């Protein structure tokens, strides 16, 4: 029943009741009392509707399969050329379809065709365009040929609506013409169109256009032939146009590296070999955007009303965005034009036992709608998850003890969660956090800048001694820094100590004794064939300190205490920093915490003026190259003026040489051997003091089905299903309205008022003069 209508009925009933009652006692049922009682009755009767009183979701969707979720910060960009944040990918990756996708269930992560009929065919050629084998040293270009499945259609959208003359229905010559369209919903006519190869080509040209501010333009331009030149041409054309006519139809310009072979086939030509390119083809940057859509959104006046591609995505995916109010709610609904896409029928061994193959072969998506509500605070979010009003939730620091219990068998769900039927997924996040040393710092780094002049033999020898002192200092700090304790205290145990940059789940990661950093850890056998890594004794670290020239944390030459600086953006004096100071104090080092704002912090890192700091990296794609490049010399922050990802400015010619070799190799024992050598160099040089890889815990209410954490892909909504009947039942069970306390409070207030009234009456009747 509609809440507002029921409210009105309730007022009428309450009014009638009060009229009857007021006949009996005029004093008790005076008008203020009548009003409050009526209000209470309204609340009680409004609660008789089917919906629970505290249900935050409007009861307007009937029996539709709706997933309720939340977002804590509003997405900034939804344009697939621009967006580069997981907060944004969780929306647009359900809408846009790049050529490839990741298999939902298989691990290690496996790429499969998405809109393609098969995986891209790669052809190699020499500098003159002649075909050569993949292994040939003459390879100058690699050409990816992509073939699209026919019959894929876009979601209904006004950009595709056609007039009676066959031309686009909505075209405006001036801002005045578009004035009547204040929002996208005002465009009542929609249409669709088949996906063709031109749409993918157009989007790659959009990536090349500097006006679209694509964060990967610079990186991809290094590989895609003609991308830089294309960008320069578009910019030059745009500059010659008046400010209000800056839109350029990119279809009118050719890009050397792109070729349309037919409606369903196109090719992308790359410079040299770049095996990681296949992963980029699974990123939304390569999702199709038709010229029609780009033109529609670039019409005069629409941007002033936020009607832009950056806010209203248009895709061929399983869902379409039907409401985008980032201040309140974002709604995705099933795309009625979505192609046939079946739930996978194979996965990992345990998937069948976990019920993840029960839906094998069924058409996706299962959900009709997904509602994301803005929730900035963790406590309301957690409360609503427990009440059942959010289907899935992470575990915040405040709710950790309530959600899980930590025992000898590790972390498990608490009894309260088990009782509610809640299940938990543990996801090993493909990310790495580390304590970085700036290798250009003379004390902790000892490395010379990339553009420094050559040294003579004597100075070179002196420099080598300085570098060795710094290396031993770094190694000593690595031993003193108890990363396991840090994870336990500050991350509630949600993470694991790393021995190198590569996180679990990515080829190149080695666990157990094989992956051990022998310079910092010892291996302790447990007698059953297993064992664990433990930090070397602190005495060993102190010995290294003495060898580095800092016995007991004092400079052996001057006797002054060694003071190191830790750069951070968080305020001073917090528990994390106090703990950090204690770690360094184990070696007699005085750690100076230098808190600053984010801009200053970034500037210090970019200019090489930081000494020690914490940093992190989340994977773009599941390849060792995407982590080992964090230590590749040419990627140094200082060397690239902030564009590189090597924040510690580490540079080792042998490491760089191995990296250049490794990045072109397929996953194989040979590649593993090269990676192992690189990790040995990393562990010896210790440019990072400690490493850890985070774990993410996700809780599911019992009616949520087919969920499996995927560390890389965000395009997972189409696989998820819910049981709406079970949810409705649990909502009612978990949320019965309790009105007794409210009545008690109202009763007390009434008595207080009555007492006051009587006291006042009595006070008025006090006789000042007695007869």
């Amino acid at each position: 029943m509609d809440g507002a209508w029921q409210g009105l009925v309730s007022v009428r009933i309450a009014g009638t009741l009060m009229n009857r009652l007021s006949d009996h006692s005029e004093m008790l049922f005076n008008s203020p009392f009548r009003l409050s009682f009526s209000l209470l009755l309204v609340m009680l009767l409004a609660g008789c509707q089917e919906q629970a009183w505290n249900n935050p979701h409007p009861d307007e969707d009937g029996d539709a399969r709706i997933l309720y979720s939340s977002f804590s910060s509003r997405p900034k960009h939804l344009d697939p050329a621009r967006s580069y944040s997981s907060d944004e990918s969780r929306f647009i990756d359900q809408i846009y379809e790049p050529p490839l996708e990741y298999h939902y269930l298989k691990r290690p992560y496996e790429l499969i065709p998405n809109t393609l009929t098969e995986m891209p065919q790669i052809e190699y050629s020499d500098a003159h365009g002649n075909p050569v084998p993949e292994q040939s040293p003459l390879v100058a270009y690699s050409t990816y040929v992509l073939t699209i499945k026919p019959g894929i259609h876009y979601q209904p959208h006004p950009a595709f609506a056609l007039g009676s003359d066959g031309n686009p229905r909505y075209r405006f010559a001036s801002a005045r013409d578009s004035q009547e369209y204040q929002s996208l919903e005002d465009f009542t006519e929609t249409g669709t169109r088949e996906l063709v190869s031109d749409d993918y080509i157009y989007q790659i040209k959009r990536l090349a256009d500097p006006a679209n501010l694509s964060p990967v333009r610079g990186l991809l331009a290094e590989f895609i032939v003609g991308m830089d030149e294309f960008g320069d041409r578009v910019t030059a054309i745009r500059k010659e146009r008046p400010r209000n006519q800056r839109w350029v139809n990119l279809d009118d310009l050719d890009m050397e590296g792109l070729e349309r072979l037919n409606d369903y086939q196109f090719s992308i030509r790359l410079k040299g070999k770049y095996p990681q390119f296949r992963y980029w083809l699974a990123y939304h940057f390569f999702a199709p955007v038709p010229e029609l859509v780009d033109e529609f959104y670039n019409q005069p006046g629409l941007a002033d009303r936020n009607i832009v591609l950056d806010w209203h995505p248009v895709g061929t995916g399983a869902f379409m965005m039907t409401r985008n109010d980032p201040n309140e709610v974002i709604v995705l609904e099933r795309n009625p034009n979505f192609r046939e896409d079946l739930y996978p029928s194979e996965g990992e061994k345990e998937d069948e036992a976990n019920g993840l193959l029960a839906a094998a072969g069924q058409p996706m998506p299962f959900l009709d709608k997904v509602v994301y509500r803005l929730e900035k605070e963790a406590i309301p979010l957690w409360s609503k998850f427990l009440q059942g009003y959010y289907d899935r939730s992470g575990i915040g620091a405040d709710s950790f003890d309530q959600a899980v219990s930590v025992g000898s068998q590790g972390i498990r769900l608490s009894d309260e969660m088990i009782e509610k039927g809640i299940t938990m997924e543990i996801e090993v996040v493909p990310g790495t956090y580390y304590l970085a040393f700036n290798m250009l710092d003379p004390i902790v780094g000892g490395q010379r800048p990339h553009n420094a002049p050559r040294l003579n033999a004597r100075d070179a020898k002196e420099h080598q001694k300085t570098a060795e002192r710094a290396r031993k200092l770094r190694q000593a700090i690595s031993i003193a820094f108890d990363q396991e304790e840090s994870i336990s205290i500050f991350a509630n145990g949600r993470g694991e100590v790393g021995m190198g940059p590569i996180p679990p789940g990515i080829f190149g990661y080695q666990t157990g004794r094989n992956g051990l950093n022998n310079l910092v850890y010892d291996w302790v056998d447990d007698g059953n064939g297993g064992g664990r890594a433990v930090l070397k004794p602190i005495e060993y670290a102190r010995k290294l300190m003495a060898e580095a020239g800092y016995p007991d944390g004092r400079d052996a030459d001057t006797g002054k205490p060694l003071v190191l600086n830790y750069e951070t953006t968080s305020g001073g004096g917090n528990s994390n920093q106090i703990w950090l100071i204690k770690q360094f104090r184990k070696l007699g080092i005085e750690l100076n915490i230098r808190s600053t704002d984010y801009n200053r912090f970034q500037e210090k890192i970019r200019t090489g003026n930081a000494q020690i700091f914490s940093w992190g990296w989340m994977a773009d794609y599941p390849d060792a190259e995407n982590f080992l490049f964090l230590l590749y010399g040419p990627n140094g922050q200082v060397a690239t003026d902030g564009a590189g990802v090597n924040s510690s400015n580490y540079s080792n010619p042998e490491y760089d040489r191995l990296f250049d070799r490794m990045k072109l190799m397929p996953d194989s024992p040979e590649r593993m051997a090269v990676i192992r050598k690189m990790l040995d160099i990393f562990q010896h040089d210790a440019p990072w003091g400690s490493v850890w890889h985070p774990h993410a815990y996700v809780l599911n209410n019992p009616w949520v089905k087919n969920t499996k954490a995927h560390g890389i892909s965000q395009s997972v909504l189409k696989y998820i299903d819910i049981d709406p009947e079970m949810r409705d039942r649990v909502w009612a069970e978990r949320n019965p309205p309790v009105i007794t306390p409210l009545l008690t409070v109202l009763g007390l207030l009434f008595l207080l008022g009555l007492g006051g009234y009587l006291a006042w009456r009595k006070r008025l009747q006090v006789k000042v003069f007695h007869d």
Partner: protein
Amino acid sequence: MISYIIRRLLYAVPILIGVNLLTFALFFMVNTPDQMARVQLGDKHMDAKAIEAWKAERGYDKPLFMNEREDSEGLLTDTIFFDKSVRLFALDFGKSDEGRAIIEDIQQRMWPSLAVALPSFILGILVNISLALFVVMFRGSLFDTGAMVACVAMMSISGVFYVFAGQFFFAKMWHLVPVSGYVPGADAWRFLILPVVIGVISGIGSGVRLYRTLFLEEASKDYVRTARAKGVSELGVLFRHVLPNGMIPILTSVVVVIPSLFMGSLLVESFFGIPGLGSYTLDAIQAQDFAIVRCMVFLGSVLYILGLLLTDISYTLVDPRVRLS
């Protein structure tokens, strides 16, 4: 009075220019356009070309105050300050650094803010005045002392505590209202009732104490004694004499905030998930979105000036002795 109002509005122009200049100087003393670009574009794979393109797209590639490359006209006008500030006086707020039209955001977010702030404000005044009058009726008694102790206790409790307690009892324990959230339209009352009640209750301590003091001051004046001597009932004294005269100082504290109501409350909106303007400025500062910051500071200044003007005008309405000149 009209000439007074016009004069006051003209006074506001230099004040707003000063506020604009100060906001601009403070913001750009802390952030350079390059840093703003880096925040907007993110850390990953960012290059100098992208930063330059971002700055050019948003007009941050010009000098701050003086463009020495330009001739006499463009010397001051072809600058970031001129570009970003002059349009504000025509209420052209432009786009945020994210690329969204700011006026659209303000128009959208002001209604939820008003939906919470207006009932909280009106109910708060009514409840506080009623309770203050009630306490004044028992002045000097144990009830009066007890009420004042309760008021001091209520003032001492942090606003966040009221929010947590309200959410814990009414939403989590008793399941009477949603913990947080907002939907526009007829169903909005379910989401507004708790924040409004909490807003009213959390203001009772200070409100009742203030109004009680004002009413007591009036109650001890000669005209009240005269009224009593003439045989006017205690209720008549309170409502016909003490209340209207006590309203004059109340107006100073109340009218000035009326225009600012739609700016919302950061605390209530954040914890109850109300998509209002309360957190708009704070989010913008964190995101280093200068375009939003300058608009909101400008708007806040305009509304404050408007509030002061309304206060002056309201004096003439409630106190015939006051004349604006």
